[in-house]
């Protein structure tokens, strides 16, 4: 795949294209490929660098984070009103977040599709209508079931516990081909077995004539006469990632897929979509929590697929349990103690099992523009989500103990491990949510679709209200939290938007 590196260009640049896609992640890459297939002249602008598989497959986890995650993986949603502060992971590279996901593939649950049909008044968002789009996406990224024998012993032990309690785990589906089970998918698969968009959609888009420009940071969209007339930005220098020379892209149509955090920031900076007062609001995060447990025998958490099994048995309580691992250094960071105690615990990592759960949360967050480039993100967890979190901690501890765990380490800063369910009660009674270690990999909804300009930023086809040639195609347009991993939902929504766009552009 040929990629233009902005960091290697000198002097101001001007480019012309029929369609300019901003962002090369799960939304941007998909729409670029679909439109290139339809014969459009497409250019993809990506703020992050391009690192081919041959490069990132040799890096250590933190090297990948430094070079491919937004702000080294340090983006946070600041907890408001006693909520936990959430670490939000997003990609900043060609391929975006898809390079850094665990590869879990879910379709949007039927109940959520039904909710969308009701909210937006269109049957085109129903499960039935979107079925062919799901097929198209899943075929492209090679979605397959994770075989049971790819589960690490750590997951097997948790599964045994959950089964004893009456909620057996189910196999996950992921976009992989030839996974060897080394548990580091979310730092770029070293084997190239995860079918991220840099290995699937973008090369196909390029084969059809699309051009991919890395190190191109978009500052604003120029609006004149109800249309976007230019995309303006700066080239990004390497390795210090500073702004360099200017560039301008003149395109007939612009599609923003800069991600849930940055799409509203770019629109706001361009003075677009402010009338609705919804831009940057309605943020959902699917807050995710990881608990660890110590077993007497080794469970080698790293030997197997990073994510292999799940349970939706408590979906009605807003909970989805998903197996999850992490590199050793990340696991070590979550272990309690200092000096001898901590080092003893790190030496026992082979005995450490991990499992996680995430919340189908209420829209409780907000993205605001700041003076700098990064947004200020706040998140005030709702009362029902707090209840669900407590319940999740209880269920995950129960399953670990039922699976034979000696102790459970809850994701609470400064908390001691618990050795029985009796010890859990006081912990939950005194729980200060600000101390909970919490992650998000699925932010959604900051420029949601809707039926009118006063309650949404774009219509159900992704077109921004009041602008003829501006479309959105990333997680920001998703109208509600979906309760499952968002890679396939975003790709499918982008496919739908691509077809709607092609039809409208031709008309």
């Amino acid at each position: 795949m040929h990629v233009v590196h902005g960091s290697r260009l000198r002097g101001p640049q001007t480019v012309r294209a029929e369609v300019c896609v901003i962002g090369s992640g799960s939304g941007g890459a998909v729409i670029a490929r679909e439109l290139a297939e339809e014969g459009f002249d497409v250019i993809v602008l990506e703020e992050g660098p391009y690192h081919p598989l041959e490069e990132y497959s040799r890096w250590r986890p933190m090297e990948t984070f430094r070079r491919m995650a937004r702000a080294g993986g340090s983006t946070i949603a600041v907890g408001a009103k006693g909520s936990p502060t959430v670490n939000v992971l997003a990609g900043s590279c060609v391929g975006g977040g898809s390079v850094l996901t665990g590869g879990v593939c879910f379709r949007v649950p039927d109940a959520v599709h039904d909710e969308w049909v009701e909210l937006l008044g269109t049957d085109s968002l129903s499960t039935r209508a979107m079925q062919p789009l799901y097929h198209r996406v899943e075929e492209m990224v090679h979605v397959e079931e994770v075989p049971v024998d790819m589960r690490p012993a750590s997951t097997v032990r948790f599964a045994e516990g959950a089964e004893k309690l009456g909620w057996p785990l189910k196999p996950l589906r992921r976009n992989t081909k030839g996974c060897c089970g080394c548990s580091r998918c979310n730092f770029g698969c070293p084997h190239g077995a995860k079918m991220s968009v840099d290995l699937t959609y973008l090369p196909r888009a390029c084969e059809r004539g699309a051009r991919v420009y890395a190190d191109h940071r978009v500052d604003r969209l120029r609006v004149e006469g109800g249309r976007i007339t230019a995309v303006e930005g700066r080239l990004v220098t390497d390795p210090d990632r500073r702004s360099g020379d200017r560039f301008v892209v003149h395109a007939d149509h612009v599609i923003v897929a800069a991600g849930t955090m940055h799409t509203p920031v770019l629109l706001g900076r361009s003075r677009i979509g402010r009338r609705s007062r919804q831009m940057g609001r309605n943020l959902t995060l699917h807050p995710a929590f990881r608990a660890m447990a110590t077993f007497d025998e080794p469970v080698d958490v790293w030997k197997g697929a990073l994510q292999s099994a799940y349970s939706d048995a408590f979906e009605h309580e807003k909970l989805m349990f998903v197996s999850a691992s992490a590199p050793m250094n990340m696991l070590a960071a979550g272990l309690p103690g200092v000096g001898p105690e901590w080092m003893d615990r790190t030496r026992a990592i082979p005995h450490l099992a991990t499992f996680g759960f995430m919340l189908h949360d209420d829209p409780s967050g907000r993205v605001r523009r700041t003076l700098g480039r990064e947004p200020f993100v706040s998140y005030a967890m709702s009362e029902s989500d707090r209840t669900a979190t407590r319940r999740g901690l209880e269920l995950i501890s129960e399953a670990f103990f039922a699976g034979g765990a000696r102790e459970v380490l809850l994701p609470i800063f400064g908390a001691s491990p618990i050795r029985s369910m009796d010890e859990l009660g006081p912990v939950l009674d005194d729980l200060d949510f600000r101390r909970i270690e919490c992650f998000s990999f699925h932010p959604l909804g900051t420029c949601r679709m809707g039926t009118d300009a006063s309650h949404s930023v774009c219509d159900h086809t992704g077109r921004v209200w009041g602008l003829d040639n501006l479309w959105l195609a990333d997680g920001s347009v998703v109208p509600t939290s979906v309760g499952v991993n968002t890679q396939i939902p975003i790709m499918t929504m982008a496919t739908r938007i691509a077809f709607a766009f092609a039809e409208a552009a031709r008309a």
Partner: protein
Amino acid sequence: MPADATALVAPPKRTRLLSDGRLRILRAAIEAFVHDGESTPPPARLDRVTLDADDYLASTTGTSRIAVWFALTVLQLSPLLAIGRPRLFTGCTIQDRQRCLERLERSRFVAIALLAAAIKAVSAFIWFEHPRSLASTGYDGLCRTGGERPDAPLAERPGEDA
């Protein structure tokens, strides 16, 4: 001040964010975290890890950088309030630094506990990427299928043999 705290060797191509003074605090914290009471962490590895941690911090958000800057400042001044020692953190013994970090980690003030967690996280992220530190966790570098990994996590790089 610990004897090795000033022996910071700067490898090429690293981005510097922290001042020398704050690097010394960070190094002293990493040393306290990883000192197991028996063997002393190799000074050259500590130097390398400290600079690597600084390079990582340079890639993070402005908010994170401010938080780390603030955390290191609090840490440097913490021995008096945390363990009743009227000294700077970098001037304490390993044992006192460990007690101090332990108190901060368990502090009833959430902000203090989170700042301590942030320093610990950065220390762990970088320290346990060194092949020998990584091997000390019992990690064998093998995949489920037993194949070799292109990233060779346990292979040392030039200059990394400390």
